[in-house]
């Protein structure tokens, strides 16, 4: 069996991701107002809690049916967001759209909960039989080819995220630029997509093209644009930085691929 301490470590990592995502939600609200990334942080928060419960029985929080419903809603939500992106930017967003990875993550979670064949010895509701001493390897997934496809897809997103983070000017178009809204760097500004749509052919709307006029008479705006930047910028920069968001996504992608593979 996959040693339980490995599952414990990953569960701890997922709880950390959940905590960071919760912190980002609070921080964005407190410092910057709605940043347009709340859905992603909410998704990370929920996925972190759900995955921790899948990995360790003692961390199970909700019945399977509830998680099914939650991830069905999240999948539908990100599907709609991707559809909207594709209307603006074309089918290219299916490959590198900003919300496409989150759609895949949500769909993978939905699949895991829907396709789980709990071990016969499982006690209590659904996933709780997976973790603890026995380990989640006792459980298997129906239609394992789907698990393999998701694992491969998630692996691709992990390496793309790492490449973007370490590449020159790590703002990889729409896929990566939006988290920068969180305002890690001085001078960063939010802009509307309407402005981006004015980009000439060839440049496309992948990247921002013009700043919005400050709504407060010229004071540099925070990520959400409705409050002035404050002295708390360093802390904000750390928590709301795109690197932290990408780090959460990488940790989640690796863990999710791990779970999918060991349950084949």
């Amino acid at each position, binding site marked *: *069996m*996959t*040693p339980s301490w*490995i599952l414990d470590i990953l569960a701890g990592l997922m709880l950390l991701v959940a905590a960071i995502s919760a912190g980002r939600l609070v921080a964005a609200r407190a410092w910057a107002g709605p*940043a*347009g990334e709340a859905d992603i942080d909410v998704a990370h928060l929920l996925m972190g809690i759900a995955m921790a419960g899948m990995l360790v029985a003692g961390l199970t929080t909700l019945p399977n049916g509830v998680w099914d419903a939650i991830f069905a809603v999240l999948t539908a939500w990100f599907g709609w967001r991707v559809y909207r*992106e594709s209307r*603006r930017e074309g089918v290219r967003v299916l490959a590198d759209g900003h919300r496409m990875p989150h759609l895949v993550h949500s769909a993978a979670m939905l699949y895991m909960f829907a396709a789980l064949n709990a071990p016969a010895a499982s006690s209590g509701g659904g996933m709780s039989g997976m973790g603890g001493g026995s*380990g989640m*390897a006792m459980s298997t997934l129906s*239609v*394992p*080819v789907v698990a*393999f496809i998701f*694992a*491969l897809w998630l*692996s*691709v997103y*992990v*390496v*793309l995220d*790492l*490449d973007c*983070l*370490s*590449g*020159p*000017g790590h*703002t*990889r*178009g729409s896929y990566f*630029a*939006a988290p*920068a*809204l969180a305002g890690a*760097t001085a*001078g*960063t*500004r*939010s*802009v*509307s*997509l309407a402005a*981006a749509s004015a*980009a000439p052919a060839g*440049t496309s*709307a*992948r*990247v*921002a*093209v*013009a*700043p919005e006029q400050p709504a407060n008479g010229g004071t*540099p705006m925070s990520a959400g644009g409705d409050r002035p930047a404050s002295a708390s910028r360093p802390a904000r920069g750390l928590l709301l930085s795109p690197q932290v968001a990408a780090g959460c996504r990488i940790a989640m992608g*690796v863990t999710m*691929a*791990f779970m999918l*593979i*060991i349950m*084949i």
Partner: protein
Amino acid sequence: MSDIAVADGEAARRGNARTAAVDSWRPPDAKRVLQLSLAAIWLLDGVLQYQSFMFTKGFGQMLAGTASGNPGVVASPITWDANLVEHHAVLLNTIFATIQLLLALGIAWRPTLRIALAASVAWALGVWWFGEGLGEVLNSAASPVNGAPGAVIIYALLAVLLWPSDRHAATAPFAAARAVGAPVARALWLVLWGSLAYFALMPDNRAPQALHDMIAGMASGEPGWLAALENHAASLVANQGLAASVVLAVALVVIAVGVYLPRPAARATVVLAIVVAAVIWVFGEAFGAILAGGATDPNSGLLLILLAAAYWPVRTVVTAPAATQPVGTEGARA
């Protein structure tokens, strides 16, 4: 509101935001895409290594099985290593899996690309010996259909070909030649595919039922649809071992020499290579038996497809500015 960001606010205020933002991002070039594909496969390898079976004595016994048929000088270290793994399965397998995970992350993370690729070559060579028994190339069991010359050696080959050096970028006719040069890259391709053709014609592989048994044997433990696919494919080559081996060998020879042909013909042979590799991966290797559980890697078919992609001939090549690329992976093509 759907938002996107301007990374350089100062430039934005100067009215140059459009140019600045567009310039800040460059899509990965062909070579980097191949490196990232290699990283993704290493990542898959890493998580496969965390499967339950790998933490049991069965994994050590599986390793010991690769010693069979090899000369003593090769087999003895395999047996020693297998015993070690059998007795310390949890510790050693955790290390193995974590190493592969780190190789994947290291290749994807640009500052560590070189060290990760170099480490992947060393690791792959070690696994080729201690984990795959040199791909069974020293005994009669090697066949291109079952993974010869060993999937892991193709990882090493790819790491060398995709090394982040563009010394030969100006004259490279394909991505795989940019680091080592076209003559060396072509020679490596010729040796690999030529050896596969040789293995296809070995006596054990051209026996009437050899290919049938090999393919039918892959059905065990697979999902119903894949088992049916394997059994159907096996029935097609029943008692046709010699004919099938000859056809396969001819295709492999054509592929081997294809890189020396003019561009249109070379492209056709690369397409043929991808098709043959895909057929091997699906029918001969059942996707590396991943769906049956207990696989340590996706086997050779997927790697051969990636390798073929690295040899895709390009029309023209121009030297590219490398100033902003920290690892020398830039190199635009017209």
